[in-house]
């Protein structure tokens, strides 16, 4: 266990072993790409024959649903641009909301702890459950949080509107392109992006 990061923590040692067992070729683990920005979503690989995008369960921190974008075999430049832009927007959104939600939770707990400390009360009540503050007291925190983050929210909103409209516009262009391809060429390998 002295070879591991946390000596004495056999659980962590186990994981070191499993990691390096893989590098020894003991387990055939595929290299899984890690999602960016604190995302805890397990990786999902859509079925090979699917021609559509896939949407997953909400991320536990950001509450946003991740999307796996389908890469068409004969993807045009426009389609690729749309897909990459949507991917980038998803990651930007994920980053904002994961940071926002986790800082909200963290600041809320700090507020509760400091209020309870000021009143001379412990974190747990008589029954051992977490002590809660009254709604009025919590409202002070909610107001403060909102006011503190006004500029950040305003900037995010502006950027989100721009990105959302751009994506919709690009989707419109891609749809028109597909109709054109279907109508005027022999290319029948298209699907209507809904």
């Amino acid at each position, binding site marked *: 266990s002295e*070879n*591991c*990061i946390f000596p004495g*923590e*056999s*659980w*962590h040692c*186990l*994981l*070191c*072993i*499993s990691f*390096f*067992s*893989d590098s020894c070729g*003991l*387990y*055939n*683990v595929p*290299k899984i790409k890690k999602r960016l920005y*604190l995302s*805890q979503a*397990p990786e999902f690989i*859509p079925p090979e024959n699917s021609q*559509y*995008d*896939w*949407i*997953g*369960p*909400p991320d*536990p*921190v950001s*509450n946003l*649903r991740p999307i*796996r974008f389908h890469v068409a075999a004969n993807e045009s430049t426009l389609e690729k641009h749309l897909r990459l832009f949507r991917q980038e927007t998803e990651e930007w*959104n994920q980053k904002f*909301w994961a940071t*926002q*939600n*986790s800082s*909200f939770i*963290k600041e809320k707990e*700090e507020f509760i702890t400091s209020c309870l400390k000021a009143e001379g009360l412990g974190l747990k009540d008589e029954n051992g459950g977490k002590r809660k503050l009254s*709604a*009025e007291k*919590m409202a002070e925190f*909610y*107001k403060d949080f*909102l006011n503190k*983050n006004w500029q950040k*929210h*305003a900037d995010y*909103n502006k950027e*989100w*509107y721009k990105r959302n409209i751009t994506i*919709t516009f690009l989707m*419109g262009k891609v*749809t028109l392109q597909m109709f054109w391809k279907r109508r005027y060429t022999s290319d029948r390998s298209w699907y209507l*992006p809904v």
Partner: protein
Amino acid sequence: MYKPSCHRMTGLFGVCLFQGLENVRYSRNLMQLCKQAQPRWGTFQHFTFLKRLYVTKMSNGLCQHAKPKQEPLGSPLLERPHLAQEQTVIHHVQQIPAISQDPSTVTFSSEEKKEENISTVVSEITHESGEVKQWKEIRVHLEDLPGIYARLSKIKLTALVVTTAAAGYIMAPVPFDLSVFLLTSVGTGLASCAANSINQYFEVPFDSNMNRTKKRPLVRGQLSPLHAVTFAGACTVPGIALLTFGVNPLTGALGAFNIFLYTCCYTPLKRLSIANTWVGALVGAIPPVMGWTAATGSLGAGALLMGAILYSWQFPHFNALSWNLREDYSRGGYRMMSVTHPALCKKVALRHSLALIGLSALAPALDVTTWTFPLISLPINLYISYLSFQFYRDSDRKSARKLFFCSLWHLPMLLLLMLTCKKACTSKEDTLVTSS
């Protein structure tokens, strides 16, 4: 960081190590379990033996919900490790800087953390097949479309809007024309569908973060943004055309203005200023005015009175609703009176509840209703004012909820009483005939 001797460890060493762990009895069945591994575990073979070891030990549920997890406390980087080895190890490596940077936020002892990790890994494992099933193809099935469109257009709210427009039409002092009435109702309904769709289109990430709105179609990926916009366009064009060409241009203009007000003013303002509530109240007030102008062709005092009653009603309704959603609004970045100016929120709700009594008394003065109306509407108006006063005084969840639910039946009741007390339009027609 990892010493080279780690590389020399074999599977046998791994098994021996397991025997040193808590659940010794499971290691004996190790090989058996691996052989009996279900096909669905095949893709996670690198973790199979670990899963079997702990799967019967713990049973914690993993809930997927939009509310941020209240536990564990502190940084979300302390949350459960992943199934994949590399990810798990990477997470553990990442946890070190998080712990060293913010020691005050780490409220768990190492034992509790270990138990947390074990229980969350198990819950991950037992639910990971469920999570994989939660991935859905973004593909529209025609049989689902009506339901999806209903949710996209907030059909219940649209129905309420059409009801208020219909009430405005019926209250107008003109003979009832069924075709114009139907055209007005359908046109207003389509305009409302369009406005609600655009609202949902703009609010996807915000809706994902609030419990009340997390099941909306765009949030769940049942429709693409382009589809939602196309649907909105497909509702706006016939809706406004019906109102403009089938009814009169004034009603059409009011409908178009209302869509603009809702989508381009109210929706962005929700995150910039508390003025959004007043704009939203105006949006709610316009449909009965549209109903009146559809009947008479002009903006009379009666139209403005109907609008004023709906305007005043919005405040006790919305302020009470928003009182219990303060946490969600704060986290989502919505600027509502209930969060930033709570005293104003309560005062405005009370003020406008009392205004309803005054406006009901004004109705007979403007020849909209008979004098019976202020009398028979007094009980319900007094009741909602009383609940507003209780909300003003107590400012708790219970009084807010009571006021909100009261507002839901108060409006239909008030409109119904108004209809029963409508001033007969025959006397007016006689006056017109004699004067000409």
